C-alpha cells in the first residue's frame, strides 16, 4: 500500500508555489526587461542565486529568518522557502521571453492608445506563451524536487512537511527499498514527462515560419 500523502503534499506545494510565483514574477520580469535602472544586474544576480547556491545555504538562512515567526516546521514555511527556491525558474524564462519580443510590438500598442497594463495583458503575455509555459512547468517540477531546503526547515512531519522527496529518503533509511523505489519511479516518470512536454511545445513554437 503506497502512502499517497507525501506525493499529494509535494503536488500541492508545487501548485501553490507556481501560482504565487506567476503573480510575483510577471511584474518583476517586466520591470527587469523594460526599465532603465542601473542596478538591474544586481537584482538579476540575486534572483538567479537560488539556482546556484547549495540548498543547505538557503535552508540555513531561511531557518534563521523564519524561526522567530514560528513558520519553521509548517507547510506555510515550506511555501515561503519554495518561493525563493524556484523564483529563478519562473523569472528567467519570462525575462528572456520579454527581451526577445521586438520593441516595435510594444510601441505599436502604445501608439494605438493602449495603456501599459492593457499592452502587457493583451499584447506581450500572449506573445510569450512558450516562455510562460516553460516558466510554469519548470517552477512546478523544480519545487517537486526540493529536498535540501525542506530537510532543513521542514521537520519531516507526516501530513504537513513530509514531501515525496523526503519520503523516499525516509523509506531508504528504514530499508523499505520497495516503497522507496515506488516513489522514485513516480517522480522520475513525472519529471521526464514534464520535460518532454516543455521540449515538444518549444519545438512546435520555434518551427521556422514557412511564410517568412
Amino acid at each position, binding site marked *: 500500500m503506497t502512502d499517497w500523502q507525501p506525493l499529494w503534499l509535494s503536488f*500541492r506545494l508545487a*501548485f*501553490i508555489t507556481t*501560482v504565487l510565483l*506567476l503573480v510575483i514574477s510577471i511584474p518583476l520580469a517586466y520591470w527587469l526587461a523594460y526599465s532603465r535602472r542601473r542596478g538591474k544586474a544586481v537584482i538579476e544576480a540575486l534572483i538567479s542565486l537560488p539556482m546556484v547556491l547549495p540548498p543547505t545555504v538557503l535552508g540555513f538562512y531561511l531557518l534563521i529568518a523564519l*524561526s522567530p515567526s*514560528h513558520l*519553521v*516546521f509548517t*507547510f506555510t514555511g515550506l511555501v515561503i522557502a519554495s518561493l525563493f527556491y524556484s523564483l529563478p525558474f519562473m523569472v528567467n524564462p519570462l525575462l528572456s521571453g520579454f527581451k526577445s519580443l521586438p520593441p516595435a510590438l510594444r510601441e505599436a500598442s502604445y501608439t494605438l492608445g493602449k495603456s501599459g497594463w492593457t499592452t502587457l*495583458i*493583451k499584447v506581450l503575455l500572449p506573445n510569450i506563451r512558450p516562455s510562460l509555459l516553460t516558466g510554469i512547468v519548470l517552477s512546478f517540477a523544480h519545487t517537486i524536487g526540493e529536498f535540501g531546503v525542506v530537510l532543513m526547515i521542514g*521537520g*519531516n*512531519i*507526516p*501530513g504537513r512537511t*513530509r514531501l515525496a522527496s523526503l519520503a523516499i529518503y*525516509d523509506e*531508504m*533509511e*528504514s*530499508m523499505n527499498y520497495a516503497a522507496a523505489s515506488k516513489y522514485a519511479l513516480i517522480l522520475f516518470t513525472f519529471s521526464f514527462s514534464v520535460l518532454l512536454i516543455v521540449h515538444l511545445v518549444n519545438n512546435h513554437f520555434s518551427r521556422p515560419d514557412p511564410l517568412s
Partner: protein
Amino acid sequence: MSRFFSILCCYLGLVTGSHTANPPPQEVLVAAAADLKFAMDSLVKAFSAASNDISIKLVCGSSGNFYEQISNDAPFDIFFSADLGYPQKLEQQHKTLAPIVPYGTGQLVLWSKKLDPSKEGMNTLLLSSVTHIAIANPAHAPYGQRAEESLKHYQLYDKVREKLVIGENISQTAQFASTGAADVGIIALSLALSPQLQKEGKYWLIPPATHQPLKQGFVLLQHAKGNEGAKKFAAFIGSARARAILKYFGFGE
C-alpha cells in the same frame, strides 16, 4: 486572461480546502530516536488497535537533532531519546510537561552482511577485507558517541579512523551496512533484531562495559498540553504489552 482567472479559482479552492482539512483533534506527533524505528512501529500498531480514534504520527531521527528542534519549539508532543541527557536538558529549559520516563537501555552491536563478526569480535574491524565501517554521527547521535567510546576502549579508533563512514543517524548507519556499502556497521541491537536485518546478516554484541550506558527515556513536551491522546500513548508505554515489545527489540532494563 480567462486562463489566469481559472487558475486563480483553483488556487483559492485548494487553499480554502486546506483550511478545512485541519488535523483531527486527537493527533499525536512523536519524535523517536532512530533506533526505535521498528519497535515504535509495533508499539503504534498495538496502541492503535485498542484506541483507533487517536492518530500517532511518527518522525524518526537522531536524538541530538530532535533536541535542537524541540529547543526551538518544534511541534512535537512526545520525545523518545536514545540518551537521557537530551530530555534532561529540555527539562532544564522548561520545555517538558511531565517527568522523564526511562524505558530501557540500548545496546551496541557489530553487524555485517558478508562477514560473521562473532568470529573475531572487535578485531573484525582490522581485517583487510573491511574497507568501510559505518557508525552514526558522534556529534548528535548517541549510538555514534558510544561507538567511538568502544573503539577507543579497544584502542582501535586511530587504526580504523580512515575506514569510518558517518551515518546521519543510527538508521542510516544500519542502511549503509545492510546494502553492503559498508562492510561492517556499529549499529543498535534493536535494529539488528528487526526482520529486515535478521535475514540479511549477522551481529555480535559489543560488551556494554566498553562504553557509557545508553539509558533511554521519553518525555511529554509542552506542545502536548491538553492533548489527551498524547497522555494516553505515554501511559501505554508503561503497560506490560509495551514493555514486552521493547524487551523483544533488545531494550533491556
